């Protein structure tokens, strides 16, 4: 299900798949698609997410069958075969994944047969049969993990009770993905855990193959990944917990730590000492700048994960006043919407803000324009700057799509990220 949309945020399924594959070291996507899909999908996510793009292959360096009229009419499998062969010959990858564009999907090319010619010879080539028109980047994230669960992740891997897998943060779609994963890794490592982020530390396809040995899957998202998490549990016996939103600041990060600790029965003394140390670190800074930021009545336009993190930190930990929160990614299931609303409305002291689910830029602008309560700070994407300028509201570019910032390892996640977030909001005007 896809709606007519003004200034959409993110790309098609292929964009999401490409974002994930591009973030895994030495993995090569191969497109069986029209000539522009490599660029379009890379530009949809990587090109609008703080200007960082996959350095193995991305955009015009991705192998592609570039289907033209001839392939549309007569089928493109022979073109795909020679494209896969060429990719194997020249690109030094540990695994190759064949993606289907709309063109191949509509004409019905059988990519499974073609890839099996290679996989039967022991070459790691895997088909992903989900054409672009099937959905958006978020679905692409789930699709690629479903593919891994079905075709890549091994069974019978010895269990490691200290190993955890992190899911829910989409690389290159969340502009702060790598910094966020690094902060999560840092915190969990302090608890004595080994962390599969999959997209940092040079982790590659081998990490994915062996990730069934984990003791716990941690899904950091209020709504994504329910299907794959259940499928993972069923096939490999790894339970999952859902952290219902990104954690920004001491309160929610500590809540995250306790959730993981409880699921894994970690040693209380260790957990409490880590929490105490980390919270002290945060407050050591906060106490050096009390009253430096002027008080704000704020609005957020973001994906659900970060909207929850931003809102809860600013309301619960920083005593700003939440006015309006717009979830700007398509969320369809009522139970998912309820979970998101609960996280945003269930605040410690602050009155709950208005929560809207709007993906269309005209409607987003309209909601902010017509908001009766005063807003003095807007955290949003590059698309949302226009309305902030129009209403003369302080604007922080903090969500996807993000074109006017370069983001390497910056993050607003966790204990340390909340300090960066607070720094960025500072305004001497």
């Amino acid at each position, binding site marked *: *299900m*896809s*709606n*007519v*949309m*003004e*200034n*959409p945020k*993110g*790309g*098609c*399924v*292929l964009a999401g798949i490409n974002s994930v594959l591009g973030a895994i070291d030495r993995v*090569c996507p191969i497109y069986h698609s*029209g*000539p*522009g*899909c*490599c*660029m*379009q999908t*890379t530009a*949809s996510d990587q090109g*609008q997410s703080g200007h960082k793009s996959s350095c193995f292959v991305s*955009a*015009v*360096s*991705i*192998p*592609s069958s*570039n289907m*033209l*009229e001839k392939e*549309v009419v007569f089928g493109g499998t022979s073109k795909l075969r*020679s*494209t896969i062969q*060429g*990719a194997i*010959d*020249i*690109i*030094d*990858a540990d695994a190759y994944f064949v993606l289907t*564009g*709309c*063109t191949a*999907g*509509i004409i019905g090319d059988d990519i499974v047969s073609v890839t099996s010619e290679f996989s039967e010879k022991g070459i790691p080539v895997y088909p992903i049969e989900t054409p*672009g*028109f*099937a*959905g*958006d980047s978020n679905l692409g994230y789930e699709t690629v993990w479903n593919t891994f669960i079905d075709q890549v992740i091994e069974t019978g891997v010895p269990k490691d009770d200290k190993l955890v897998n992190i899911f829910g943060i989409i690389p290159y779609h969340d502009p702060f993905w790598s910094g966020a994963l690094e902060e999560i890794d840092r915190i969990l490592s302090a608890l004595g855990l080994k962390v599969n982020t999959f997209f940092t530390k040079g982790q590659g396809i081998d990490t994915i193959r062996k990730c069934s040995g984990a003791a716990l899957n941690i899904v950091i998202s209020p709504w994504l990944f329910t299907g794959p998490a259940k499928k993972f549990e069923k096939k490999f016996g790894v339970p999952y917990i859902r952290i219902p939103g990104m954690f920004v600041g001491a309160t929610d990060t500590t809540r995250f730590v306790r959730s993981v600790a409880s699921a894994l029965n970690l040693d209380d003394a260790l957990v409490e000492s880590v929490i105490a140390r980390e919270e002290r670190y945060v407050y050591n800074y906060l106490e050096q700048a009390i009253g430096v930021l002027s008080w704000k009545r704020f609005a957020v336009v973001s994906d659900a994960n970060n909207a929850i993190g931003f809102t809860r930190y600013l309301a619960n930990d920083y005593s700003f006043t939440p006015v309006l929160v717009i979830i700007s990614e398509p969320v369809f299931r009522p139970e998912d919407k309820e979970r998101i609303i609960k996280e945003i409305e269930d605040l410690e002291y602050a009155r709950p803000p208005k929560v809207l689910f709007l993906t269309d*830029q*005209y409607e987003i602008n309209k909601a902010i324009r017509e908001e009766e309560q005063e807003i003095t700070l807007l955290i949003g994407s590059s698309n949302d*700057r*226009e309305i902030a*300028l129009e209403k003369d509201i302080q604007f922080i570019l903090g969500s996807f*799509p993000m*074109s006017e910032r370069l983001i390497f390892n910056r993050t607003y996640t966790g204990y340390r990220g909340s300090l960066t977030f607070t720094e960025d909001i500072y305004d001497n005007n």
Partner: protein
Amino acid sequence: MAKVTYSGVRESKPGRLNDLGSTGKEVSENYKKGCLKRADRSFAQGLQCQQINSMAALMSLEDSVFISHSPQGCVGCAIMAVDMYRVGQIHRGVRLVKNPRLIVTNIDQKSVVFGGEAKLREAVRKAVDRYNPKLAFVFTSCASGIIGDDIDAICESLQAEYPDTLLVPIHCEGFKSKICASGFDAAFISINKYILKHQKIAKEEGLINLFAPTTVSYADQKEMERMLSLLGAKVNYIPFYSSLEKIRKIPAAQASTSICKVFADEFMKTLEEDYDIPYSHTVMPIGIRNTDKWYRGIAKVIGKEKEVEEIIAREHERIEPLVKKIRDRLQGKRVFICGGTGRSFAAAALIDDFGMELVGLETPTYDDDAQIDIEYLNGIHKDFVIDIANMQPFEQVNLVNRLKPDAFIGVPEWAAKLGVPTTHVLDGKRPTMGYDGLLFLGNKIADQLENPGFNKKLAAHSKLPYKDSWYEENPFKYITEGGN
């Protein structure tokens, strides 16, 4: 004989090809003899599709809505035009920077089965309800093309419903062409058919159509306008940062010219046929030689040959001492160039201004126009490799690694990892063109090539994704005759 209507697909022109590996000398001889055959690549990397160009060409128009009849992914590359539009407003002093109004119909599984007409109708209705725009462009996609939505018929029926918004369908399905510049032609064909409609209007003395694509910076626009105003011309700068009114003015012009070789080149021929507007099609005005050539071209069309020589002499007097200083820093450096059609040949001419030597050239298409440039380059440079490719980084890195140039001009991403000093002549946010642009560009090139520390250190820490064995192979190994 009935006039053959140009389809907008650049491959439909005889003798034009996209896949070839050769040398400057060999390709020009073979072209003359008619021995070049159309080919394909049995292995290739991704291309830019023509839909990207159709959209980018128009997305800065005022009072317009842009409707992409496609899945959501097909507007990914629109970010480049969106960014240019936003930055361009800042450069033009606009404080309340606006987004372009881009609506995607979001073709999905249901539309693939039942057709996408309902979604397109909804998108047009939203465009009109929300913005009451003067123009609404409808762009096709691979998906809408293959499922067979008749956007012309749908737009025609909607036009009756919404008489105040001019609906302009544009046929830019990606699978129709390997040459992304076809998308420019598709846009102009529709502008002629739906906006200008072959209606002649009163001429405006001294008015010149200056066709500019989305990659032209505001600094470059001002320099082009300055140069043309020195000839006494008034400039109709289109379609970048223009409007329906300015497009409607096109037939009133006395002459046309373009900033880019593959932008509006076909359209200017049409304007001559349909509206008696003569045109100049030369080169991109980057570097002294090319700027002179471009300037003389348009001056000749408007009968200002004498005036232009006086201005050129004055401009040369002003900038040549400064260019000499740049030349002293760059003389003799061996260069590899990769770019789009306009910029790649412009860069090749530019390096001659600076006394540099061409060792390799990567450009997307070969045709009559390219032949003229190659013959000119053959007259200056002893021998150089030519790769007819739209990017294809795997061939590029093989060639760059083999030729070991002192400098690389083009997208730096891959050559940088080989440690080669890199620079570029494409900058949509800063000056590159005309006499003023040349100094900024020349100093940038000299400074960047003089200080290659970043690339040297990057190469020591970073590896390209290709196998070592690939660098030993023939770079043109995958080019096969008789393809698409």
